[in-house]
Each structure stands twice: as structure tokens, then as C-alpha cells.
């Protein structure tokens, strides 16, 4: 008996389960979708999801039922669902597992969502590198068409549904929901100014819901077992489980489905087996590269949306990157800044230019040429970026900088005073590309 209740990993944890339609149906797959078509109106479904308190698993934690309810009921013309399978936040590799091991689970969630919002077309926007995932999803969709679970007039309800896979081509920003829409429309992935929100003007200017893979995968279980059951797991404001992707200096990296609200310490030391080589912990990123780093004295933080926000970071995609005592924090911040500099879409000046400036300063400090004025300069730059861009990328890229200066200022100062990196004096510093 597992210690933690498994919802999304339940099927795939069984020996020999390959995620085929037959196997998924044998464990009750698609019963929720059939139930919805027979017994519920679209607003019933939205109410159930609202009551469950399901929050978006992609990063922002926005209530899913509420998002669905924003689609105008009286809209004439197409509506769309886009499943966000871009999985581009560094540290995150959970959707890959959900798609590759149990693709029908998310397809059923998508079908139920489409019924609820009145969409007849759904796209899965999957990151371009996931060749295997795209193949598995295409096969699963074909299985569903053959079994008449997707297609025209499903179960005589008059409800039509088409699901397509759309592959990205390598751009972090396309995980941002409006950049994703631009990319699906065949353009550069540049985020749109909001409002209007996608629920009003989304894909092809039609009302659109964008939900993460993990969010949608929860929906069939909420329908079958009820919103009250869902609320028995997790916390009051963050119900349910979350798949935590643990990586970095831990003994057992991996995806773990755990109740929201579980203390960070329990995840790192119990579930993931503790720090590699039994070293001391230096810092943790709790929710993907965009989430500000947390120092060891915050290890007892419950991992739910509000508690992580309360200590100045964010749960984000719940990708936990662990760094041991020998990690150079300036180097880690520089590594992440290289990522952000490379991935800025270039639309907004503060983000595009700011990321380059910050990177230059970090390289200088790490390379032994830091100046005492550099820390103030970094903080100043951050104030010129945060909140001044079209999308949240600007706020994301300053997270690692502000948090490392706040919690590890002395390490920066040591680099500047000693004119070099105390951790890797001779190592290759960066791999710009």
C-alpha cells in the first residue's frame, strides 16, 4: 500500500500497464466522459470542477473550473481547448511521464473539458523535442477515434470532438498561454497583451481554454469520485495531489505524486532519499527555474500554492531542483540567466536587454572581475524589469537573482572580494551557445 494516495500515477504504477485504450478502459477509463455525456449539462460539469477546487498545475495555480466558466455561454462560432504540453520550465518533466505512460487519462480529461466549454476542437501543444510523447499521443488519439470516444455524435449525444497534436519547435516562451496560441497560429511565440483574455479572444480570436496536461488528467477522477473526495486530499485552498519533479543533488530523483501541502523537507529527505553523498543542503528551487530559490531554513514550508508564495517563492510547476553545499550560487544563478537570456522572445525591451545585462554582470562576478557596485546594479536592473513586460517572463527571470542576493549575499561578496569563484576556480564557467 503506497504511503500517499495516487490518482494520476495509480494506473501506471501497476506492473505491465502500458497505457493502451483497452487497459485504460479496464480500470474504468472513459466512464467519466460517458457519464458526463449522459447525465450532466455543461454547467453541471463546470460546477463540479469548481467545487473540487482544482487549480492549474502548469504554474499559475488558477482555479480550473473558474477558467472554464469564463467562456461566454452565448458565443456563436467555434471554441477551443488547448492542452499545454509544452513542459518547458526547467526542472519539470512530469507531463512527459503522464503523456507517455497513460495518454488516455489526459485525453478523457480533455474530452470532458471540451464538453463543458462547448468546444469541438482541441489541440495538444506538445514541445517539439517530445518525439516519443507525440507518437504515443497520436496513437492514443487514433485508438479513441476507432472506439468512437472521439469523433462525431459521440454516444448519440450530438456532441462532436476532434483532438489534434500540434508540435512545438523549441521555444520556452510557448509554454506561456498566449505565446502558445500565437505558435499554434503559425507565428513567432510572442505573448499577447492581456486583456483580452483567451477565454474571450483566444485561438483564431475565438474563446479558448488553455490547461496543463496534469490539470486535465485530474478531471475524470473528479467526475467519477466527486469534488468532496478530491478535497479530502491536499489542503483547503490547494486540494488534490501534485506531481513533484525532483532533480539535482538528491539520491532518488524522479516524479512523485504527493498530496499538496506536504512539507518540502519530507519530499527531499524522505521521498527523494536525501542529498547525494549525505552532504548539506544549500538551496532549493521549489517550482521550476522561474521560482525564487529557498534557503534551508525554509524546508518546513508546506508545498501548496499559498504557503510557498507566503515565503516569497512560488509552487509553479512543482519542479524541485536541489543544490548541495558545494554548489556555487553565483554560478547557479548565471546558469539560469543564460537560459532566460536565450529564451527571451525579444518582444519587450526590459526583458530582452535586461537579461543580457544581468548575465554580463553575473559572468563578470563569477569570472573574478566583479565590482562592489555590481550587487546594487543587479538589484536596480531587476526593478526595471519586474512588472514591466507583456508576460510574466520578466518577473520570472529576476526571481533567481533577487532570491540569491537576498539569501546568499555573502557568497556574491566573497566572489568579488576574492576576485574569483571559491567553488570552481579553474572550471569552464559557462557554455554560451
Amino acid at each position: 500500500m503506497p504511503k500517499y494516495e495516487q490518482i494520476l500515477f495509480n494506473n501506471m504504477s501497476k506492473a505491465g500497464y502500458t497505457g493502451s485504450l483497452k487497459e485504460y478502459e479496464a480500470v474504468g477509463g472513459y466512464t467519466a466522459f460517458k457519464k458526463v455525456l449522459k447525465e450532466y449539462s455543461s454547467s453541471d460539469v463546470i460546477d463540479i470542477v469548481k467545487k473540487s477546487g482544482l487549480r492549474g498545475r502548469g504554474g499559475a495555480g488558477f482555479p480550473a473550473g473558474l477558467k472554464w466558466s469564463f467562456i461566454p455561454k452565448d458565443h456563436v462560432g467555434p471554441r477551443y481547448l488547448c492542452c499545454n504540453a509544452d513542459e518547458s520550465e526547467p526542472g519539470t518533466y512530469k507531463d512527459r511521464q503522464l503523456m507517455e505512460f497513460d495518454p488516455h487519462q489526459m485525453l478523457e480529461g480533455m474530452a470532458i473539458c471540451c464538453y463543458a466549454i462547448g468546444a469541438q476542437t482541441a489541440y495538444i501543444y506538445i514541445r517539439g523535442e517530445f518525439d516519443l510523447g507525440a507518437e504515443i499521443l497520436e496513437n492514443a488519439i487514433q485508438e479513441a477515434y476507432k472506439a468512437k470516444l472521439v469523433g462525431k455524435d459521440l454516444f448519440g449525444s450530438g456532441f462532436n470532438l476532434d483532438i489534434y497534436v500540434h508540435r512545438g519547435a523549441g521555444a520556452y516562451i510557448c509554454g506561456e498561454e498566449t505565446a502558445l496560441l500565437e505558435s499554434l497560429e503559425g507565428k513567432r511565440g510572442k505573448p499577447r497583451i492581456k486583456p483580452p483574455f483567451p477565454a474571450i479572444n483566444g485561438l483564431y480570436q475565438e474563446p479558448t481554454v488553455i490547461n496543463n496536461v496534469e490539470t486535465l488528467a485530474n478531471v475524470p477522477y473528479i467526475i467519477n469520485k466527486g469534488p468532496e473526495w478530491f478535497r479530502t486530499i491536499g489542503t483547503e485552498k490547494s486540494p488534490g495531489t501534485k506531481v513533484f519533479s525532483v532533480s539535482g543533488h538528491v539520491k532518488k530523483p524522479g516524479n512523485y505524486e504527493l498530496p499538496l501541502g506536504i512539507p518540502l523537507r519530507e519530499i527531499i529527505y524522505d521521498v527523494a532519499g536525501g542529498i547525494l553523498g549525505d552532504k548539506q543542503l544549500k538551496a532549493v528551487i521549489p517550482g521550476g527555474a522561474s521560482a525564487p530559490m529557498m534557503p534551508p531554513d525554509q524546508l518546513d514550508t508546506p508545498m501548496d500554492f499559498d504557503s510557498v508564495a507566503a515565503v516569497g517563492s512560488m509552487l509553479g510547476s512543482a519542479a524541485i531542483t536541489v543544490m548541495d553545499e558545494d554548489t556555487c550560487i553565483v554560478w547557479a544563478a548565471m546558469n539560469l540567466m543564460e537560459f532566460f537570456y536565450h529564451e527571451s522572445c525579444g518582444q519587450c525591451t526590459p526583458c530582452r536587454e535586461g537579461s543580457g545585462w544581468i548575465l554580463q554582470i553575473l559572468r563578470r562576478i563569477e569570472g573574478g572581475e566583479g565590482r562592489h557596485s555590481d550587487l546594487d546594479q543587479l538589484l536596480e536592473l531587476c526593478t526595471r524589469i519586474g512588472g514591466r513586460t507583456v508576460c510574466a517572463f520578466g518577473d520570472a527571470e529576476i526571481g533567481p537573482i533577487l532570491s540569491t542576493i537576498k539569501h546568499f549575499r555573502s557568497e556574491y561578496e566573497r566572489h568579488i572580494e576574492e576576485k574569483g569563484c571559491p567553488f570552481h576556480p579553474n572550471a569552464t564557467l559557462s557554455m554560451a551557445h
Partner: protein
Amino acid sequence: MKFKVLSKETIQRIEAQYPKYPDLRSVTLPALRIAQEDLGYVSEPAMIDIAELLDLTPIQVYEVATFYTQYNMKPVGKYLVQVCKTLSCALLGAMSIVEHLQKSLGIGIGETTNDGFFSLKVVECLASCGSAPMMQINNRYYENLTPEKVDQILDDLRENGRSDLATGPFMLPLLQEQS
């Protein structure tokens, strides 16, 4: 219509994407991918062909091709080796994997071996952080790398054109054994 470089088969594969979308412009990304699969990279004539096919201007295709990192704007080797360098991989030795590859292949980052077999690139996060360090070669992932494993993979590809060390379905790190 007369096309510069796209073959009839390539065009048919692109046209097979049309029914998925209400707007032809949405086919831009799939079209670039298909053209690259068939030609090895995205050349200017290929982009002009795609523009012609999708009723776009060449710049509309070009600006997309240059935005996304997966499109090769120049020819690359038969095997494109892309090593992830973002934090989780970097913490677990991505740099030594890159150094090892440079030595084994005798090329620098961004270069191609003389025999045209391998190109080496360093890239940002490929969402395989729990099995770091990792690399992608063409369309397959290779994870939990060590220098010895890297050499085995290169040998396999040289000799057989494929390697069993590629990550296949259901080969991700095992789910937790919770007691």
C-alpha cells in the same frame, strides 16, 4: 505551381496537415518540421516553397523558422547531438559530458565532424531533469549519461545507425517504490 526544392512526397506530407487547422498559416510549424526531416535543414528555397504552398510571404515563414531553436538554418551532420546544459543537468556534470564529446568527436560546440556524421550543440532544458545529464540525438533522448555510455552510443550510431541506449517508452526512471 512549381517548387524549388520540396519534393512531391514532402508536399503531400505537408498537405496532410491541412485538415487539422481552420487557417493554413497554422501549418507553418509542421511544414518546416517536415521540410527539415526531408532535406536535413531549412534552406531559403525551402522556406520560399512553404510560403508558396501556404499562401504566405517568405518573410512570414522565415521569421518563424528563425524564432524556434529546432529548425536548422544550416546543414548539420547525420546525427545532431544536443546536450542539455540547464541547471539540473549542469549540477550533475553536463559540462564534463560536453567536454568528453568534444574530445571523442574532435570538434567544438557548433561544429560538424569531417565525415559529416556528427554535429555537436549545447542546448537549454529538454525536460529530462530527473535523468540528468542527458542529450538528444536526432529525435531520441539518451539519459543518465556517463562518458562510457556516451562513447557506446557514438559507436552504436557509427556502426548500426541506431543505439539501444536511447530512451524508449516506459523507460523513464521507475516510479517511486513507496512503503
